[in-house]
C-alpha cells in the first residue's frame, strides 16, 4: 500500500477528530489505537499496522502532536526492542500474543543479555536453559537490566547447547518475569543511582512456545535486538509532552514517561556537561586562569569537532558513502570529551569538587558529573571494543587471534 503523504495525513487527522478522547484511560485509548492501525503505522498490516514508510509516519506523528493525542506505548522502554525482535523473528502466535499488549502498554519488557561473566563478550553467556519435559528451565544470572523491576516479560539469551561453538549454542526466549524463579535486585552504581538491575534465575521456567527463532539460533535474533537498540536508543528518551495538556490520560502518560526516563536522569552528567563549562568558569573566576583557559578551549574544540564529524557522517550515511562502523569514532570521541570535561570541571571547581549533594556546585550536578563520567567509556560498548572495531573494520588491521572457536564447554571463562 502506497498512499501519498498528504492523503494519509488527512486520513489521520479526520480519524483523530472522530476518535481522540482524553477522557479515556491510557489503556482504553491505546486499545482503540491498536485496533485501528494508528498506533504503529509502520508495522505490517497483519499486525496492527499500516505498512507505511518513514515520511508517512512522520506526517501521522505531526497530526498526533497537533491534536495532543497520545501515541502507542511501543516507543517507551524496552518495548521497542521487543517489538522489533518479534516482528522480525517471532512466530505468528507470538506476534498475536505480545504485539498488541506492547502497543497498549499493558506489558512492560526488559532485556536480559549481559552477564557478570560476559560483558564485551556477549556471546559468551553462561545462563543456561535446559529442556525438561515440556518446558525450558533457566538458571544463571544477568546484569545491567534497565527497568527489570517493572517488567512483565524479558528478552532472554541463554545457552542451550554447550557442545557447539559459543555463537551456535545460544537460544532466544521470552521469559515471564512474574514467577518465583526470577529474582530482581537493584544494582547500586558508584554515582549512587540505581538505574539497572541484576536478575537471578533459579529453575525459572519458559514455555516451549516462547522461544523466538530456532533452538541454537539465538545469536542471530540477539543481533536484531542490538542493532535496533543502537539505532533507536535516543528515541525512547526523547518524548515531548506539552505542559498545558491536562486530564487523567495525560497524568497516566506523564507517569509512564517519568518511570521510563528515571534511569536516565544522570546521563547528561555522564557525558561531561560541556555546556556548563564556560558559565562555571565565569562564576568561579577560573576564566582568568590562562592554564584553565587552554583546557577549556581544547575541550570546546574537541566537542565541536566531534559534532561536525557526526554531522558529516550523517550526510555521508544518507548519501550511502559511509563504511558503517564510523559511529565508533563518535563513541570514542565522546569518551575522550567526557573525561576531559570532567577534568576541566574539577580544575574550575577546585576544592569544592570534594563536596557532594546540594552542597556541591550547581545543586550537586558538578559532583554527579565527576562520579558519572566513568560510565561513558563502558556503556554501549567499551572504549576498548570501539578501538577493536575502528582498527579492524575502518583501518583493516589484522583481527585478534581467537581462543574461543571450539565447543563452548572447552572455552576458558570466568
Amino acid at each position, binding site marked *: 500500500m502506497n498512499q501519498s503523504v498528504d492523503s494519509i495525513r488527512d486520513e489521520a487527522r479526520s480519524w483523530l477528530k472522530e476518535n481522540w478522547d482524553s477522557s479515556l484511560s491510557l489503556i482504553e485509548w491505546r486499545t482503540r489505537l491498536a485496533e485501528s492501525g494508528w498506533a504503529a503505522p509502520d508495522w505490517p498490516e497483519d499486525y496492527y499496522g499500516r505498512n507505511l514508510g518513514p515520511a508517512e509516519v512522520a506526517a501521522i506523528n505531526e497530526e498526533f502532536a497537533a491534536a495532543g493525542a497520545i501515541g502507542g506505548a511501543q516507543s517507551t522502554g524496552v518495548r521497542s526492542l521487543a517489538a522489533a525482535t518479534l516482528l522480525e523473528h517471532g512466530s505468528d502466535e507470538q506476534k498475536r500474543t505480545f504485539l498488541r499488549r506492547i502497543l497498549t502498554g499493558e506489558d512492560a519488557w526488559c532485556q536480559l543479555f549481559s552477564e557478570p561473566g560476559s560483558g564485551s563478550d556477549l556471546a559468551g553467556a553462561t545462563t543456561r536453559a535446559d529442556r525438561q519435559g515440556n518446558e525450558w528451565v533457566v538458571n544463571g544470572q544477568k546484569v545491567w537490566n534497565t527497568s527489570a523491576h517493572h517488567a512483565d516479560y524479558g528478552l532472554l539469551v541463554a545457552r542451550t547447547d554447550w557442545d557447539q561453538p559459543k555463537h551456535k549454542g545460544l537460544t532466544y526466549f521470552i521469559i515471564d518475569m512474574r514467577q518465583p524463579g526470577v529474582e530482581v535486585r537493584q544494582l547500586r552504581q558508584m554515582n549512587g543511582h540505581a538505574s539497572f538491575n541484576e536478575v537471578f534465575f533459579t529453575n525459572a521456567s519458559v514455555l516451549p512456545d516462547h522461544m523466538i527463532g530456532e533452538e541454537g539460533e539465538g545469536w542471530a535474533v540477539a543481533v536484531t535486538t542490538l542493532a535496533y537498540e543502537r539505532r533507536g536508543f535516543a528515541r525512547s528518551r526523547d518524548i515531548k509532552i506539552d505542559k498545558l495538556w491536562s486530564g487523567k490520560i495525560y497524568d497516566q502518560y506523564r507517569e509512564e514517561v517519568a518511570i521510563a526516563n528515571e534511569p536516565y536522569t544522570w546521563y547528561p552528567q555522564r557525558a561531561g556537561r560541556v555546556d556548563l563549562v564556560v558559565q562555571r568558569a565565569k562564576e568561579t573566576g577560573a576564566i582568568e586562569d*590562562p592554564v584553565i583557559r587552554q583546557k577549556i*578551549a581544547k575541550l570546546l574544540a*574537541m566537542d565541536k569537532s566531534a559534532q561536525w564529524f557526526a*554531522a558529516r557522517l550523517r*550526510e555521508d550515511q544518507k*548519501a550511502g558513502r559511509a563504511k558503517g562502523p564510523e559511529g565508533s569514532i563518535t563513541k570514542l570521541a565522546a569518551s575522550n570529551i567526557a573525561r576531559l570535561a570532567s577534568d576541566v570541571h574539577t580544575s574550575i571547581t577546585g576544592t569544592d569538587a570534594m563536596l557532594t549533594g546540594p552542597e556541591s556546585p550547581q545543586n550537586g550536578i558538578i559532583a554527579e558529573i565527576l562520579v558519572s563520567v566513568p560510565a561513558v567509556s563502558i556503556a554501549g560498548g567499551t572504549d576498548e571494543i570501539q578501538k577493536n572495531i*575502528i582498527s579492524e573494520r575502518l*583501518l583493516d*588491521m589484522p583481527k*585478534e587471534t581467537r581462543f574461543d572457536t571450539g565447543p563452548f564447554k572447552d572455552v576458558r571463562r570466568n
Partner: protein
Amino acid sequence: MEFSFTAEQDQFRESVARFMTDKSPSSDVRKLMETDDGFDPNVWRQLCGELGLTGIHIPETYGGAGFGPVELGIAMEEQGRALLCAPYLSSSVMAGYALLTSASEEQKRAWLPAIADGSQIATLAISEDLGLWRANDICLTAKPNKDAYTLAGRKRFVLDGCVADMLFVVARTEAGLSLFKVDTSAKGLRRTPLPAMDPTRKIAEIELAGTPAELVGQDGGFNLDATFDSVLVAFANELAGGAEAMLSSVVEYSKLRVQFGRPIGSFQAIKHRCADLMVEVELAKAAAYQAAQQLASGEEATELASLAKATASDAYLFAARECIQFHGGIGFTWENDTHLWFKRAKSSEVFLGTPQEHRERMLQAVGV
C-alpha cells in the same frame, strides 16, 4: 552539502590527489628540499596550468577559477598529504588572500591574475624578530615620501621570501596597519634564506632599509584578521592532510612489519593506538572542513579558523610522533621518509601561531 562534500568536490579531490601522487613522490620531495628554491618549475607550471590550482579560490574577474575556501581546502589537504614542495601557501594563499581582502580594485586586476596563473610567485611578510603574527606585534614602519612610502625594518619567517617575484609587506603607518608591495630589485632590500628545520618549506629574512614601496589598498586599511583567518583555514586543511598521511603510514607499516612471528599490527597495543590516532585525525579533518564551510558561507570565521589550526597542528604532530615510534629504529633514520612529515608538522605547529595562541584567540573570538 552543509557538512560533507558534493560529488563534484569529491571528483576534484581525486584529480588533485592523483596529481600529487604522480608529481610529488617522496623521492622528489627529497631532491627538492636540498635545492635553494625548493620547488620544481615544471611541476609548478603543471599545477598552475593543467590543474589551475593556483587560482582555485580567486574570482574569475581576477583570472582565477572562482571557487571558494572548500575547494582550496581540498587542494591544500592533498598537497599536505603528499608534502608537495611548491610556493603555494605563500603565493596563492597568503599573498592571494591579502590582496583579496585589502587591495584596491585596480591592484587586484593588476596583480591577482599573475598569482592565479602562477606566472609570478608572491609572498606575504607578517612576522618580525619576535616571530609573532598579531597586529600588535608588527613594528616595521612605513614613512610617506612624496607619492610613495619607504619601509625600514626586518621581517622574518617569510615563506618563499627569496624566490618571490612580488613581495607584500605588512607595516605600520600613522593610520595603522597597512600593506605594501616592494619591488624585488628595490634599493635597500636584502633577502637572506633562514636555515629551516623543515627543509621542504623555504623561509627567509627580509631587511628593508629605506626601501621604496607601493601602498596596497588604503593607508591603514590592511585587514590582517580577515587575511589571517582565510589563510589559517587553508593551512589547517593542509595540516589535516599531513596528519592523515601519517595515520596511513602507521597503519600500512604495522601490517607489514613482522616481529615475534606476527605483524605488529595484530597486537592490540598497536591497534588501539591506531584507533586513538584515527579519532584525533578525524576530528582535525572535521574542524578543518567545517572552518572552510564557515568561511565559504561568508560568516565570521575567526573562532573556527583558530580552532581548526590548533586542532590540526596538534593532530599532525601527534600522528608524526606516533609514526616515528611505530617504525622503531628505522623511524629515526634519514633514510625513512617519516621525518619529512615530522619536520613539516613541527614547523607548522609554530608557523602562523602556536596551538596555545590559537586556542586563546578562539576563546576571545566568542567573547570568552
